[in-house]
């Protein structure tokens, strides 16, 4: 079950500043909704812990992230894999940056592939919940890059 997200927003920062923010796990990961903790393995690998609660399925998800592709100041693409009670998730998230007058346009897209029993909820609960969480992340990003 794949859930796809996409959108864009504009900030009054240079593409370089936005790029530097996005590839810094300390700053970027903390914006994840219900963020609990972070451990950094190396400059391109880190693990985040987030609280997850979907109906009766509650717990902590541990997501191993990899900065798979980064070209300053054009784009930053992450992929990750996590597990929680009820299933596993494979993530892809990409940010493509382009300069605009007085700032940067951030075009983002993501895909969450859900595996396990959790997936049977995807049609009903997961998709709107996922969209809500992604919106929180984007709102956080916009606020942090203000």
């Amino acid at each position, binding site marked *: *079950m*794949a859930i796809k997200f996409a959108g864009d927003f504009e900030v009054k920062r240079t593409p370089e500043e936005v790029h530097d923010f996005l590839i810094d796990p300390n700053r970027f990961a903390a914006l994840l909704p219900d963020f609990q903790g972070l451990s950094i393995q190396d400059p391109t690998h880190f693990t985040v812990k987030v609280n997850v609660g979907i109906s009766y399925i509650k717990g902590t998800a541990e997501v191993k992230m990899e900065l798979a592709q980064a070209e300053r100041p054009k784009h930053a693409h992450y992929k990750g*894999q996590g*597990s929680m*009670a*009820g*299933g*596993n998730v*494979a993530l892809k998230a990409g940010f493509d940056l382009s300069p605009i007058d007085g700032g940067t346009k951030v075009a983002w897209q993501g895909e969450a*592939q*859900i*595996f*396990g*029993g*959790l*997936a*049977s909820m*995807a*049609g009903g609960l997961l998709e709107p919940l996922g969209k809500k969480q992604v919106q929180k992340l984007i709102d956080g990003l916009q606020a942090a890059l203000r």
Partner: protein
Amino acid sequence: MSAIEKNDARPWVGRALPRKEENRLLRGRGKFADDIKLREMLYLRFVRSPYAHAKIVNVDVSSAEALAGVVCSLTGAEIAAQTQPFIEIGPDACGKIKDYPLAVSKVRYQGEPVVAVVAESAGLADDAAELVQIEYEALDPVVDAEEAWTDKSILHDEAGTNHVWNGIFEYGDVDQAFREAAYVVNIDRMHFHRFSSTPLENNVVIARWNPKDDRIYYECNNSFPSFAIQFLSAHLGVHIDRIRVETSDIGGSFGIKITSYPQMAVCALASKKAGGRPVKWVETRTEHITSSAHGNERTFRDTRVALDKNGVITALVSRHIDDCGAYPRYEPLGCVIWSQVFPGVYRFKNARIDFTQAVTNKCPVGPNRGYSRMQHLWFLERVIDICGHELGIPTDDIRLRNYIRPEEFPYTTPNGCVYDSGNYPRMLKVAKERIGWDQWKKKQVAGRNEGRLIGIGIGTTLDSGTNNFGQAQIVNSGAPFSGNSQGANCKLDIYGEVVVSVGSCPQGQGHETTAAQVVADVLNIHPDRITVRTGFDTERNVHTGFSGTYASQFAVSGLSAVHGAAQKLKTEMKRLGAFLLETKEDDLEFGTGEQGPELRATSTGKSINYWGLANIVNVNSAVLPSELYELTLNCRYIWRAPFKVPDTKKKFGSLTLTYASQLHIAVIEIERDTFIPRILDYVAVDDCGTVINPPIVEGQVYGATAHGIGAALMENCVYDPVGNMLTSTFSDYTPITAMNMPTVKYDHIETPSPHSYSGAKGMGEGGAAPIHTISAALQDALFDSGIIIDDSFNNADSLFRAMMANETSQAKKVRVERR
């Protein structure tokens, strides 16, 4: 004593006798596997794969094992190190598949067990299971059998292919028939969906590997234990005599509980690791839906049907692709079992079917009511129905033109099966009368004039019972199975009670009652005087390698064994009675006197009751002359079906002994605004030969009809493209309930089987009839809209999609060549 009068001279077989087991089961006094609590019992929980296809990179059970109350855990690697893979029935590449009860290096379907955790309580086992850390590396899944056949992503590396089996079943002169055809109907693709059974009681296993005697003791609800112990013995490396399996009351199986032997293996190994403490596993509903077993999913490609100018089918060609899920297990038997009903209820003699089976990243399949035959019969019913609509021949008429005629029985099919008896035209006549065919036809015309979508459909199906296991040799010439048998024991106990045991494990089919009816007729006593010990026990019951309850055979194999054992007992009782009453055997009559069941000498009026007979043999034996020492009044009988090994090259031979039949008619309306299909009227006509107990037959017809209606309209195992099962709870799988059942009008005819001693045929698997019937009724409703019903599952959503696709696509699913 039953309300039925003692002096009623009618035989007990055929009477509407209330079920003996009803009192126990309806009052909550049944004994089911989960009712069993043993001292020091432990509880097992499986950790299952969230992935449909992935490598297992690492398994860490340390946190789980550190939890207080956790006794041990088991991984696939541990099991692989101490056992052999399960036997594979299939040949060639399929035979190389290594199937262990826990995944070893890869997972191949979502829900596959990877780790077992054993704890002091079920709750602790649940908690511990959540602490197991498993790292996976996702692989490309394949969830479609046709795609699997291309081998782009291989499930079993050791096999090197996803191919399980392929064979061509060809009979007659197909090419000649097509050359001479007046019409050729071409059907591009049809699909039989994946669904399962939802017994009230899920799988349960209690295993104890006793270190004192190095024997394994099982109490469980497996429905084919004699098959299970053969797999377990080879897998565990334990002599088969060292495995004891007991079953008690079972809350439904419908075939699905045949394949619980992998879980039985894990529980035994867990018990061994836990020092011999008993280990219980109780399956949850989601586990049952996602990972017990599903029915076979099948796709029918490139179907061509030759018909003469009268609409009689003369030849059929098709390719069938079967999806058996991640592990073959009971497969590839399904690749040949469908051919028990090769022509269905029709007379065509020329046919070529290319049958293929592949593994996919989905739950393994297993026998499900109507196993492998219902898919084929649905296909044939779609063929006849589509041909009727396309050629403008009414659907009742085209069936009558093609049915095997009553005078042709016993009828030998093109592949050598012998249909014992039947009268399909009469069933159709009865069904049409019961539903009011002519009146509904008028209502249909009136309704259509008002814009309503009303369809009337017929479905005819066969329930072939008592397999010839020699058909396994058609899929694998080295398979060491053939024939069929069942064992029973009938005895007079020390105080003269009549006690019957038989190697079956009933799941609601009323074996206690019907076995008692058979023995009651032999001994001329009331069935309430007969104790039938139900439940399988490898140490207590007589059993053979075919014993269990499956494949519509108890009425033939089980009751034939019971009848044989009762006859042997009767013969011994007569010899003993003749000696004691000082008369000839043919002077004796069996009956019930002042002191209970007895033998009477008609010439002298002297009698001896059963206590007296049993007393002489068991505790007063010094009065016996030496020539009667061989009498035991404890008689074992093995009934064997009169089969020969089929010709495996020609795929020809008698594959089943009896053929019960069902004919259903449904009237359905599809709501224009919502596309919800609603059943307006429904009739089910059954023919299972001589009826042993009418309410039991009727009950099984209702149950099978409910299962089939559920399958046709509500129950579907839906997988997404990455192999997630999206219908893993009852909320999503939506099994049929009493709330969704229409009122079913029931009727029956009796065409006694010449192949069973009583004329009875096995029954209970007619669950396919509603699927054929509902597809046909929907077809009738939608044909004028240009819709072809080419899938066995049709709910409001799929009907909506079919209507929308029809409006946007010009592709013809059916093409008719008129010569």
